[in-house]
């Protein structure tokens, strides 16, 4: 099962395909080389063999079998070791002369007196001449009385070459085997990593969104893929969490006012009333509805920001000018409360993001500061470019938040819990949190003496 899967993997298929192609080309080349070596006879060698055969024929013609044997022995004596491989057989296969012990059978040798390269098995060759198979041009002749003669010229360079070709064939076989084993093991590795990712995916599909793909620590392509997948999963989990929060919030924040609205209208309908009463009830209901719609819109805005769907509407704008616009919008509100409301500008600061959402977030911070700072208190908004950070700080002289509660306040931002009966309060800060996250900004609370400092630190990556 596993093996079948392995053989189907791309890695194995590719490795085997290329190994086979290379092996085939190589094998053909070897075969051609061998064929050439096995069919070619050096003309000088061929002539020498023919001459010797002619001399033997002369001897046979004049003195029969005995003269032939003698002549062969004479030739043998004169010859070098490489030319001393020969044989003379009587018609009854009795050995008359020569160094070979019997007629070679490895390859057929026509008895026509023509030199051809042939192999002679080592068992037939005397040890003093060779320890191995002998290869070289061979001529053979059958005389009229049935006596057969064989003369060979040993070609040692051809022998070596053929041996080498044989060796290369073995190497080729081993290489093929190695390619198969290696590709199988490599594919096994890939399959294992793939299975790991697949198992994680299956678990996620079963609803466990917290699962993550484990990396091997080798920083290889699988680790890169795992990291990308994990980033995607983080994002999906965040979106799902955002949606869940919205559903929870909708249930929380819209149910009670809807119930209130419904009972008001139902009670009015219980008995006939005069026009003014109806008018009043409807008027109050419209006010309730207005509040409901505001809450609904705020929740939706948070959800959309959370989902990051607004990112298409991002643009480049001057953050300093935008903060100033918001500042001018809220200024009369602070003035009405007798608060000192100031903005310390930093000159044009180009930023890429959602102008609307950032304006809304900063407006919410200003609104809170104005709300919680007592009359005749001070509120300072300050923009600072700090290296690659753009920091907007809202500093108020209000009662502040106890440092021990800072973390809890943040938790409340995220949790969107029910501590917001007045729209624009808890919801407003939730939006600030979400907008900060959307823009990769950090949101921090610090105690001032007295009061609270809220900072929004935007990363200055203008063309992200």
């Amino acid at each position, binding site marked *: 099962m596993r093996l079948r899967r392995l053989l189907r993997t791309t890695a194995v298929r590719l490795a085997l395909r290329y190994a086979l192609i290379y092996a085939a080309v190589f094998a053909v080349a070897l075969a051609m080389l061998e064929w050439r070596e096995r069919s070619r006879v050096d003309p000088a060698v061929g002539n020498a063999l023919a001459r010797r055969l002619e001399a033997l024929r002369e001897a046979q013609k004049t003195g029969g079998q005995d003269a032939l044997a003698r002549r062969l022995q004479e030739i043998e004596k004169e010859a070098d070791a490489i030319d001393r491989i020969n044989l003379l057989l009587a018609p009854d296969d009795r050995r008359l002369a020569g160094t070979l012990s019997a007629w070679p059978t490895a390859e057929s040798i026509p008895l026509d007196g023509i030199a051809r390269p042939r192999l002679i098995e080592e068992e037939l060759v005397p040890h003093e001449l060779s320890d191995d198979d002998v290869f070289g041009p061979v001529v053979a002749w059958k005389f009229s009385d049935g006596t057969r003669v064989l003369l060979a010229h040993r070609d040692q360079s051809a022998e070596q070459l053929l041996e080498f070709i044989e060796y290369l064939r073995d190497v080729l076989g081993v290489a093929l085997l190695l390619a198969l084993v290696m590709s199988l093991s490599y594919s096994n590795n890939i399959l294992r990593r793939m299975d790991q990712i697949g198992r994680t995916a299956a678990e996620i599909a079963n609803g466990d969104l917290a699962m993550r793909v484990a990396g091997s620590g080798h920083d290889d392509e699988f680790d890169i893929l795992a990291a990308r997948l994990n980033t995607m999963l983080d994002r999906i989990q965040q979106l799902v969490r955002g949606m869940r929060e919205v559903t929870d919030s909708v249930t929380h924040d819209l149910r009670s006012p809807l119930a209130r609205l419904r009972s008001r209208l139902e009670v009015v309908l219980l008995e006939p009333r005069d026009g003014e009463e109806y008018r009043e009830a409807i008027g109050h209901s419209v006010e309730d509805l207005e509040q409901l719609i505001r809450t609904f819109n705020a929740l*939706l805005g948070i959800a959309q920001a959370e989902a990051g769907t607004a990112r*298409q509407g991002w643009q480049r704008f001057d953050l300093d000018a935008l903060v100033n616009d918001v500042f001018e919008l*809220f200024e009369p509100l602070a003035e009405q409360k007798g608060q000192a409301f100031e903005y310390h500008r930093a000159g044009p600061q180009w930023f890429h993001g959602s102008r*609307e959402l950032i*304006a809304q977030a900063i407006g919410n911070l200003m609104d809170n500061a104005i709300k919680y700072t007592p009359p005749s208190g001070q509120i300072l908004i300050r923009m600072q470019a700090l290296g690659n950070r753009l920091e907007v700080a809202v500093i108020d002289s209000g009662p502040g938040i106890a440092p021990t509660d800072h973390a809890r306040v943040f938790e409340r931002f995220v949790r969107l819990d029910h501590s917001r009966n007045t729209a624009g309060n808890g919801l407003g800060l939730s939006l600030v949190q979400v907008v900060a996250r959307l823009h990769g900004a950090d949101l921090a609370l610090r105690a001032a003496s007295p009061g609270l400092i809220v900072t929004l630190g935007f990363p200055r990556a203008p063309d992200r």
Partner: protein
Amino acid sequence: MGKISALTYGRDMHILLIEDDVRAARYLAKGLTQCGHVVDLAADGDSGLELALNRRYEVIIADRLLPKRDGLAIVRMLRADGNSTPVLVLSALGEVDDRVAGLRAGGDDYLVKPYAFAELLARVDTLNRRQPLAAGESLEVGDLILDLQRQTVRRAGHPIRLQPREFRLLECLMRHAGRVVTRTMLLEQVWDFHFDPQSNVIDVQISRLRGKIDKDFDTSLLHTVRGAGYRLGAPA
């Protein structure tokens, strides 16, 4: 609340309403008729486009998502045909991108559902070209004069000092003199913000402006229209 006087708004406009939600369309048509307008109803994009091409209207109100042909397609067809009747696009899609797409298609204004009827009335009124908005280098309402060239404001000859943002707020109100301008319209036109600040900032802005242009004079020019917004002009 609830005292939207028909007198506050312009009357006698011929309005085409293209909306597939029949009940919503009926309520809307009833409201507009009570305010003195004449309303034609179309329940889908094709019949809406046909009416729009064959009759003259002061304003067309088109829902964005319609069967057969959506609101933006209607606007594009009209503009391609050389028809420049003002179109107010109604939509359940409220993101910045959606609004931008609506205006880019040739819509003159964009209103996100659920909207207040007073908001719709005020915007339709603004779109009426039979009574064009005030334009020119200086705007006059009663004895109040705003000079755009010199960026000065005078009432009955007395100079009034305004901050730049107050100046733009007053300019917006004066351009719409005699008509209702809602809080969202002011936020959009003076600040270019399209969100709900969840706070009464505009009311406070107006009351400060009122302190500067009305406080020392016998007649008030800047009126609050309950449940709707503000109106600059002689008392109604």
